[in-house]
């Protein structure tokens, strides 16, 4: 029933369309992102997809200045752990916010990044 959702491919298909999606445990109510096979709280296998608002605040961040080869052209760039409104957290690239304005507690909004075959998680300004 949730088979298609708990693959990374299904997650990123939704993400590409602008929808950040978590899963909620039908047994204990635990929320998880990205999806896992078993609920980490109760080990049930009864997930239901939950669309997230896609808004949150920066919990921690860094500015990468020495980048892996594939990202060298982007450097410097900011990466942050974002605590989402629903309480779960996820790592993403910060975009369209000047590096000196990136701060812990800054509100941000999800946006998909990348080309058609390689979507990744980004966060931009809330406004």
């Amino acid at each position: 029933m949730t088979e298609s959702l708990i693959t990374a491919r299904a997650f990123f298909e939704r993400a590409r369309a602008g929808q950040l999606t978590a899963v909620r445990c039908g047994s204990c109510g635990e929320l998880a992102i990205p999806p896992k096979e078993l609920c980490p709280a109760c080990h049930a296998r009864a997930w239901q997809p939950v669309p997230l608002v896609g808004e949150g605040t920066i919990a921690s961040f860094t500015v990468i200045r020495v980048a892996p080869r594939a990202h060298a052209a982007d450097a410097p760039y900011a990466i942050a752990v974002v605590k989402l409104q629903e309480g779960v957290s996820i790592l993403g690239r910060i975009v369209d916010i000047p590096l000196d304005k990136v701060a812990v507690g800054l509100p941000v909004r999800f946006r998909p990044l990348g080309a058609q075959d390689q979507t990744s998680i980004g966060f931009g300004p809330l406004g």
Partner: protein
Amino acid sequence: MRRVAVIGVGVTKFGLHDRTSAELFADAAGDALTDAGIPASAVQALYYGNVVGGETEHQLHTGPQAASVLGIPSVPTTRFETACASSHAAFRHAVMEIGAGVSDVILVGGAERVLNVSTAESTEYFAYASDAVWEQPLGLTFPGVFALIARAHMEKYGTTEAQMAAVAVKNHRHGALNPKAQFQKQITIDQVLRSAYVADPLKLLDCCPFSDGGAAVVLASEEVARRHRKPVWVLASAAASDWMLLGDKRDLARVPATERAAAAAYRQAGLGPTDVDVVELHDCFTIAEIVASEGLGLFEPGAGGRAAETGLTSLGGEMPVNPSGGLKAKGHPIGATGAAQIAEIVTQLRGEAGPRQVDGARTGLTHTLGGNTATVLVSLFGRD
């Protein structure tokens, strides 16, 4: 479980080498067997740590390859890969095999070669130890992982960049006393603070170097160990894991795997943090030493930065940490690091560490962290 001892240690100099990782391991293993005063024919198994051999040397199957280069091709050999904790994980399994009575003598070690490729390449390969679907595509690097931890620690506890710099200065001061260290020169707080940012708030001199090197230790059952000089007893060896993804970690300012592995090790040994005289812990970045010293219970959460700044963790201080110079100054050939930390603690407990000796050390601890804090090994050692 039977008692297990370390009866021999060997470590190459860390830094740039024009030798393969297998040759570096074999060099260290030869020294460890000589130090143990035991013939290679007594070795019943090899447990081996190597991480990026496939990437930097185009070499898989590195366990039997290392055994062949050493010249003991017929013993059962297994390669362990838990990122930077690989040879400490190998060590724990060897302790269990001897403890269980399956073998009496096991060679444990590891090696890495990365300085034969560019920094850009090694930065990419080390990033392979973070998640390939959810984290690598964002351009996350290893300094980046610990920068996120550093920022969280600064926010939660008020830790400063100067306190992190104090860790680097202290470990370089120790490394200057270690003839095997990659960096044997002292640095100043000012030099650290003025070095270029790699991943804010971490600067170049907050980071350990890329290193080539090998390390090995010989483990033996009590019966065999009693026939050899100065056995150092393994009092505990414990492992713990944690979520891979940074977003899944509940509190980035702490490392739960360190706290769990330490609790298990202290329980096995019937000891607590105040019983420990000398520590070799995983300072891949300065913040990593601060967080580890807290997770091991040496200091309260949030007090690790002040401890470094006020000299508590220096040689001669109340709780000497990383007398070898740590990963920061001694170097960090990732597959060798766990075994090298164990070799240092054994040397300390034998009273053979020369100018970096912690006076009267009777109980020692090693802590090795794998990758993005998802693997931690903690072992405790004591002498008669």
